[in-house]
């Protein structure tokens, strides 16, 4: 089990660097991004598989973990907090839900019976809602600790 969590973190780190490089994350921040992404994703994995949490609260708590650590790492590597924390969240973006919602919309269009349409409409709404709520919770979770740290520094 411990090995599973470790490998989850490792692959999340690789994914964060890969997707971060599309947005030209500074090379000096790669290490920080990888570390944050690994910790965040491993937290979510642990909560979902050991504690049987739903993906939404698990992603929220994982984002809080990222937000708590990002200001310290940002100071250490001399990069703005957002340039570390946002790419670190990338592996947790619910991309699968996002395009399943689109597939649901397409299935709606080609469905022939009412039952088919209802199922496709259910797919569209279920995936779309979960996707939007996860992204919102994640950004709220990462913003709160960063703002608190910011206030502390400025007085």
């Amino acid at each position: 089990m411990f090995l599973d969590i470790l490998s989850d973190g490792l692959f999340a780190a690789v994914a964060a660097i890969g997707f971060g490089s599309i947005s030209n994350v500074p090379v000096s921040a790669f290490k920080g991004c990888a570390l944050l992404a690994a910790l965040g994703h491993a937290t979510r994995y642990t909560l979902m598989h050991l504690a049987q949490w739903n993906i939404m609260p698990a992603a929220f708590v994982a984002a809080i973990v990222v937000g708590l650590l990002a200001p310290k790492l940002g100071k250490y590597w001399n990069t703005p907090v957002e340039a570390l924390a946002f790419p670190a969240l990338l592996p947790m973006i619910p991309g699968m839900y996002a395009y399943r919602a689109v597939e649901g919309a397409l299935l709606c269009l080609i469905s022939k019976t009412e039952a088919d349409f209802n199922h496709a409409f259910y797919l569209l709404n279920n995936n779309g809602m979960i996707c939007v709520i996860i992204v919102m919770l994640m950004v709220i979770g990462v913003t709160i600790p960063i703002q608190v740290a910011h206030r502390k520094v400025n007085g």
Partner: protein
Amino acid sequence: MAKAFGVDVEMTILPRSVMMTVWDSSHEKSMAMNEKLPAIPLNFHLISQFSQLSWKVRDVHIGVDDAQVELENILSQPRLNAYLVTLLTGLGNASFCRLFGGDWVAMFVVFVATINGFYLKSILHKRWSWDMRLATLAAACTSSVIASVGFVLGVTATPDIALGTSVLYLIPGIPYINSVSDLISGHLLCSLSRFIQACILTACLGIGLALGILIMNIQYF
């Protein structure tokens, strides 16, 4: 930053332009600018450098001319090497496949599919200057056709995961995050604009994937 130069600044940020008004310290003279925003790709390196420059202006009080020189310096820095980015994206998406439970063969399939799709997208967008949305659609279609090799040849035990994760590198993750982050800070127009743009890109991705599945005639749904 404005205080260091002895002026007051008011800014309005809209989705495609920035309005900025600068006053002198006694509020007698003002100057307004309305700048259109070019559609440049995301660049976190640039953002960090700008942030460091703004701190320098505030704390070390370097003059306007020095700041201008440094700004030109920052703007002339190249992006990461395109081939390196392609390789890293491929590795990143392959490890994403692993996170969803794909086996090693599926990871390799996703790696190849991602590299091809990403390369195609950058060629179409940059060299042929196709629209970003069309390029995304074409890339998603290519990636899904390549990733469906698992279904056709039966080389992997998890072909559905390979096909499902092969297009995930096209999800505009940072725009989604930025959209919510704007929402929190009250920039509702920017937030909505980013969200709709990200949704359109996701829809193009979905259509491309559906097209690929249709071409290969796979029972995926």
